């Protein structure tokens, strides 16, 4: 089998070591540039030899990503990257596998594969760039586009209700769910690193700007002033706070429902202290995204442990080999009923 035999000492890398020689072909000003840079920057800190890292993508603007990473890379078929990554992990559990996808690739054509890679808890890090539009095909609405939005394919406004990527991931049983923003390089780096270290399927939604077809779709978390009231930084073990320094707002839980309060109005200890290992809390928080009354949560929403699909299979295999030895084809062929003709 291919499992690495010894622990390799990874060289000391810099960001440059992860930049490929291919020309980057995104539109000038696209949010993907910042994401690329943040990911290249976070790679040296992973402590993984470059040759053991694989980026797999589907189709779409985001999915050009592997070409620009100086690692092993595979730009595959629309929506299918999770399936290809699963096969790769089965064959090569020694590799660190990233999946790069978008809102159309991951939640529309590839929605089925995304469900199953998350529920199986295959050890891959999934980065979904959500710009709420189809960029590469020139501006149709996507499964995350808000209801009523006018796009090329919905000149009278879209009639679809959008999917919330976080509730989707939580709903199918993902074990690590997070969100970050393309305009916040430091936060992206932190989240990508945490996701990469998670054992099992890690799902990260990266809010991304498509300045050509859906500019400033995430302005609420871009604009310096808007952001104050609209971005909620989620931190494990800390109260959920946002708003201006001099008039902080916080979340409290009323029954199962979160509510925004002025911090100064509530007693100490009344605020919702976030626990990222609590799937109930994660669901409640993820739902806020769809509600304009609430800020948009950003950070790690869920981080729990569960059996990793390929590890379970490999353990079964090891046990079978330990119990009865490695299979031998000559023995297999002559097993059961046989007879000899002289």
């Amino acid at each position, binding site marked *: *089998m*291919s499992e*690495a035999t010894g622990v390799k000492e990874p060289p000391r890398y810099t960001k440059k070591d992860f930049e*490929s020689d*291919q020309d980057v072909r995104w539109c000038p000003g696209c949010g993907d540039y910042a994401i690329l840079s943040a990911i290249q920057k976070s790679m040296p800190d992973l402590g993984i*030899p*470059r*040759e*053991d890292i*694989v980026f*797999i*993508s589907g*189709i779409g603007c985001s999915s050009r990503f*592997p*070409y620009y*990473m*100086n*690692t*092993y*890379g*595979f*730009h*595959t*078929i629309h929506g*299918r990257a999770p*399936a*290809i990554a*699963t*096969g*790769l992990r*089965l*064959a*090569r559990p*020694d*590799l660190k596998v990233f999946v790069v996808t978008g809102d159309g690739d991951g939640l529309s054509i590839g929605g*089925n*594969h995304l469900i*199953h890679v998350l529920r199986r808890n295959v050890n891959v890090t999934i980065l979904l760039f959500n710009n709420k539009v189809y960029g590469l095909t020139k501006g149709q609405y996507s499964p995350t586009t808000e209801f009523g939005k006018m796009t090329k394919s919905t000149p009278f406004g879209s009639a679809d209700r959008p999917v919330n990527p976080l509730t989707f991931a939580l709903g199918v049983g993902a074990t690590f769910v997070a969100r970050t923003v393309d305009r916040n390089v430091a936060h992206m780096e932190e989240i990508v690193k945490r996701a990469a270290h998670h054992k099992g399927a890690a799902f990260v939604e990266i809010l991304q700007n498509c300045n050509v077809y859906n500019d400033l779709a995430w302005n609420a978390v871009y604009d310096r002033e808007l952001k104050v009231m609209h971005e909620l930084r989620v931190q494990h073990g800390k109260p959920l706070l946002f708003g201006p320094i001099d008039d902080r707002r916080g979340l409290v839980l009323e029954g199962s429902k979160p509510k925004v309060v002025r911090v100064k109005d509530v007693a100490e200890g009344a605020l919702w202290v976030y626990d990222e290992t609590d799937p109930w809390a994660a669901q409640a928080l993820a739902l806020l995204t769809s509600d304009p009354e609430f800020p948009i949560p950003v950070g790690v929403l869920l981080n729990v442990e569960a059996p990793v699909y*390929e590890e379970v*299979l*490999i353990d*079964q*295999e090891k*046990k*079978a*080999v330990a119990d009865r*030895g*490695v*299979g*031998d*084809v*000559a023995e*297999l*062929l*002559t097993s059961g*009923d*046989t*007879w*000899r*003709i002289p």
Partner: protein
Amino acid sequence: MSDGTPVSAPKKPRRELDRAVVRFAGDSGDGMQVTGEQFTTETAWAGNDLSTLPNFPAEIRAPAGTLFGVSSFQIQFGRHRVYTPGDRLDCLVAMNPAALKTNLSDLKDGGLLILNTNSFDQKNLDRAGYKTNPMDDSALAGRYRVHKVEISRLTKEALEDLSLGTKEKERCKNFFSLGLVSWIYTRPIEPTVTWIKKRFAKNLEMVEANIRALKAGYHFGETAEIFGECYGIEPAELPSGLYRSITGTRALAWGLLAAAQRSGLSMVYGAYPITPASDILHELAQHKRFRVRTFQAEDEIAAVGSVIGAAFGGAIGVCATSGPGLALKAEGMGLAVMAELPIVVFDIQRAGPSTGMPTKTEQADLLQAMYGRSSEAPVVILAPATPGDCFFVAYEAVRLAVKYMVPVLVLSDGYLANGAEPWVIPNPESLPEISVGFRTEKEGFFPYVRDEATLARPWVRPGTPGLEHQIGGLEKEHITGHVSYAPDNHELMVKLRAEKVRRVAQEIPATTINGPSAGDLLVVGWGGTLGAITGAVEEAQMEGKAVASVHIRHMNPLPPDLGQILRQYRRVLVPEINSGQLVRLLRAEYLVDAVGFNRVRGLPLATSEIKEAIDQILKEKE
């Protein structure tokens, strides 16, 4: 064979036959498949050559007694070579009226007809649509040798003192039938006794009941006055060796295991449940000790995706499906063509289109295999000819895939998958080498530099330092593998991908011609029709006709000597279970006036119908 002697020697006269065709037919719940399989094992023990045809409904639990719920198992066995399960029956066992109705027309005049009279009650007669009881029909007795046996009652009687419930006792009646037919054809019942002991090891009462039912049937034949004689069939003169019975499904799975072991590569098998391909997944999933990792994917697309991922990782990636599933895999196979990764796809063809008749056989995916992907996406295509051949073809598929860095598609079919034949167990050591040289050398590395002889691009395992590279579905620049939209480069790459597949022709051995190397007629077949074609051609040859046949296992590329061979005969006939697919390819490729013989009934071709087609075409010539 010493341990093959019957429990007690038959006392009635024994008549020697050359061959016999027997079919067990009953309700889906009557255990006809087990009965047939056990009769097959007994027959293999008796040293006869044989060929089988299981035939069962797609419905898991079809309503009892209905026509569409009938399940059957047919076997032909003989003292000479047996090529097919046989066209017409010498003996039909009908466990209920529905089985009689749906199978009687295949019984030869004068053939043995064994009826379970207990099941011919009003309810079952109604369900089968009989207005009057066919057992009372004097025409039946006039045309066939009818044996009315109270199979259900006799079974229950034999088990009387056992504490099992009436239903459970009744369920043992298939072993009574098996015992009876085993006596009629002097088959040894020991292998079945051994099998019952193993199968029901956890329930000793069931062991006892089934063995008793089996022996009761056997002794009933021996003692009941209605059976005046029994039949013997001398062992066939088969090539010497250690034999086992093998189905196409198992042979495909084992061929993969042999390829994995020989190459030292790990294997990922990705599959989505589909009839009749699923049995390969079931088989492989048992063999964790062989380090094959089976993955039940969320759909057909994910299944092919997973094996592409595995191949990218340096493992053998294999998936299997059936007709409609192959359509779903087209996109993934296109990627494997572009990325030039070695994957193997089995298509266990079934009658279609759409869901069609999932448990029935067909050969109608050849053109889909050839052309059913977007743009120009050639792949290597192989087709096994017999159940046992599936082993070698699976192995060859892996060998070619990794040698040429190309997807290989294997066209099996429902008949090969479920059919069984006695099989000389090969020595895995004698199989051809599968050499895999992963590229590790940095000097001069580009993802799309090619081997001169095979045009294969290098296979690099991720994890190899210094060879980090990116590939994908976008057109590749020759050698560098960079994304390229240059017109001339695209044309060059289209040609290179096609040429690489064409070069597989250098692997194909000289075509074996069954018959004269020139003459009036060449019959060209492929896949599971080998037996029927060979039987028909040999009959024609015995009549002194200048007829030969060839059977193609390499469908793409075709054997390099085929064009030359085709021209040595005045006429070319291509029997297929489709509306004429190989015949089209041959006409296009070689400009020969080949004609098709085509049936699409979900059934294997019959020797007799091919023979008629041969006679017909020879007559036309005159």
